[in-house]
Each structure stands twice: as structure tokens, then as C-alpha cells.
């Protein structure tokens, strides 16, 4: 499975659940933009490492809205403390999906520590998160997404980027569009 396949599954779940979707910096944002651009997507263009934190702040502030954040292995490794903070708060409307391709895909596919044995699902559990799932195939990801609305999912994918177009919006417009609809509770 490639990362864009996982992103497509997550975007589909966000659409079905009327969830807000925060997406990690770099090519993952472009891949999400290419498969499903909606006002409920927040494309994080800078601040590497903070997608899971932004998602947590949203989930705590909007308890009646479902929130999903897409993060990456390199980014999570940059902000491991976030996994502990998420465990202390454990909002039931927050699903964090870490797409682990073992590489810094947006900067030339340098290997990350997960390609050498670091296991982010065990790190997430060790940080105190009670609901952590790991998906190693497309089918497993589909089933786990069907069965889980909160907690943390670590999905293993192959390295490599899709040929996705640039996001044709300025940061201020991304934020305004997102916030226009974000106060409504999920159906």
C-alpha cells in the first residue's frame, strides 16, 4: 500500500463521519488535496511535528465534532511528547492516524528511525494511550477505520510520493474556509 491509498481511506472515513481532518506538512497535504479537497480539511503547511497537537486542541475545543489528524512517522518522532499529552487527555472524539513509511518522504526519502526498528504503536502505548491499533495492509486499515472513531492507528505503507499538484490556496484562505464550518457538531 502507498501513502496516498491510506490517505484516500482516511478522507473517505472523514467524509462519512462528517469529521474535521488535519493533515501533516508536505506531500501528504498535496496528496489529500488531490484525492479529496473539502472545507473540513486543514492543510498544515509549516510547523513540522504539530499536526497531532493541532488535532488535540480542536478535539478538546469541539467535543461534539469528530476530529481526525493524519500524521507521519518523521513528524511524530519530532514531537513524541504529543503522544503522552494525548494519552492524558484522551478525548473520545479524536482519532490520530500515523502513516509510517519509514522515511522523510518530502525531503528525499532519507530513512527515519522507524525503518531501523522504532515502533510507534508501542511508543504510543507506552505513552499511556489505551486504544492503539496497527495496520499492515490496505484491508486491515479499512477494517480498523470502520471499527475505531478514537484512539491512535499506526499504518505501515511503502515509501514513495504520488505525483500530486500543489495546493492552490493561500494559508489565510485555508484557515478561513476551515473555521467557517468547524463549529457545527458532527451529524
Amino acid at each position, binding site marked *: 500500500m502507498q501513502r496516498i491509498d491510506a490517505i484516500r481511506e482516511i478522507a473517505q472515513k472523514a467524509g462519512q463521519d462528517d469529521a474535521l481532518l488535519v493533515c501533516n506538512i508536505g506531500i501528504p497535504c498535496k496528496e489529500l488535496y488531490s484525492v479529496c479537497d473539502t472545507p473540513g480539511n486543514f492543510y498544515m503547511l509549516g510547523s513540522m511535528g*504539530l499536526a497531532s*497537537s493541532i488535532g488535540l486542541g*480542536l*478535539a478538546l475545543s469541539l467535543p461534539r465534532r469528530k476530529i481526525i489528524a493524519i500524521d507521519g512517522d518523521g513528524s511524530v518522532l519530532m*514531537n513524541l511528547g*504529543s503522544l503522552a499529552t494525548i494519552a492524558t487527555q484522551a478525548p473520545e472524539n479524536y482519532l490520530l492516524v500515523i502513516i509510517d513509511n519509514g522515511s522523510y518522504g518530502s525531503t528525499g526519502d532519507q530513512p527515519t528511525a522507524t525503518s531501523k526498528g522504532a515502533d510507534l504503536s508501542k511508543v504510543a502505548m507506552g505513552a499511556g494511550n489505551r486504544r492503539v491499533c496497527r495496520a499492515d495492509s490496505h484491508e486491515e486499515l479499512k477494517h480498523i477505520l470502520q471499527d475505531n472513531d478514537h484512539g491512535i492507528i499506526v499504518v505501515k505503507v511503502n515509501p514513495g510520493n504520488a505525483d500530486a499538484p500543489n495546493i492552490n490556496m493561500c494559508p489565510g484562505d485555508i484557515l478561513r474556509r476551515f473555521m467557517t464550518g468547524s463549529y457545527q457538531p458532527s451529524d
Partner: protein
Amino acid sequence: MVKPLPVDGTSSEAVYQGMKRAGIDFVVSVPCLNLKEVIQMVHRDPDIIHVPVTREEEGVGVCAGAYMGGRRPAMLMQNSGLGNSVNALASLNQLYGIPLVMIMSHRGVEGEPICAQVPMGELTTQLLEILEIPYFLPDSKADAIEKIQVAWKTALEGKKPSAVLLPIPFWR
């Protein structure tokens, strides 16, 4: 309802009252000894969501999400954490136009007993200036109540972070 400040109110009560009057309803914190009582007041307040975080940069992200969810966020922190937050303040808050008030215990200045606090203590205002973050320097408890409200208004209207610096003498 916001209660009036007691005549003999402490510095911590003044900071808390400033936050309440500014309408702050979401607070992340990284501790400093000087912030101990403010953090307890915030934690006990049922109208404030309090999230202790592991690092200030993480707190910037959590606060950004809170603002996007309709809240008025503030971060209680030591000035040393400004250095941990620089990229996020620039490439998240400044880039998108996201307000945040950083209420900082300003260490490394007059009265500082720990030499390791001095380098960041002396760099703090220069860092804020280069980041184009407006900052406020209350000169009394009553002024802190006022300046925290002005700091939030400045952040909201300017769509950017602002800071309130509370040095060691303020807490005595």
C-alpha cells in the same frame, strides 16, 4: 462572572484575573516555579480547559487547534520556552494568522539565582522583536490585569501571537 480583585491580591491572582477578563478559556502550560499558583487556579476553573503539555512548541500547536475550534487560547510558560517555539510561532501562527497570548515568567533578569537562565533571559525581548511579536511589560499587579487583556486584544486584532513578560520582581 469575573470577581473583583481582592485589595491584597497576589501577583498570581492578578495574572489569573487578567486572563479571566480577557475571556481566556483554553490554557496550555509548561511549568515555572513562579507560575505554580496561576497554573493551579487555571486548573481548578471549570470554565477553562487546561492542558499541561510536554514542550512549548507542542503547546503552540494545541493552542492553534483550540483557536480553530472557537476558543481563546493562552500559554503559561517560562521565557526559555520561547526558544523551543520559534518555528511554530512563525510557520503556524504568523503564516495563517492565528492569535495566541503567551504569558511568560521572565527568568534570567534582575534577581535571577541560576546562571543558566541568563542567556535566554537577556535574549527574550530581542527574539520577540525579530519575530514581530508585540509584548507587554506590566509594572504592577493592577497593570498586569490590564496588559493581559490588551495582549489578547492585540493578538486577536493582529491575527498573531503576543506576549506578556512577568519578571522575577513582579512575583515578589
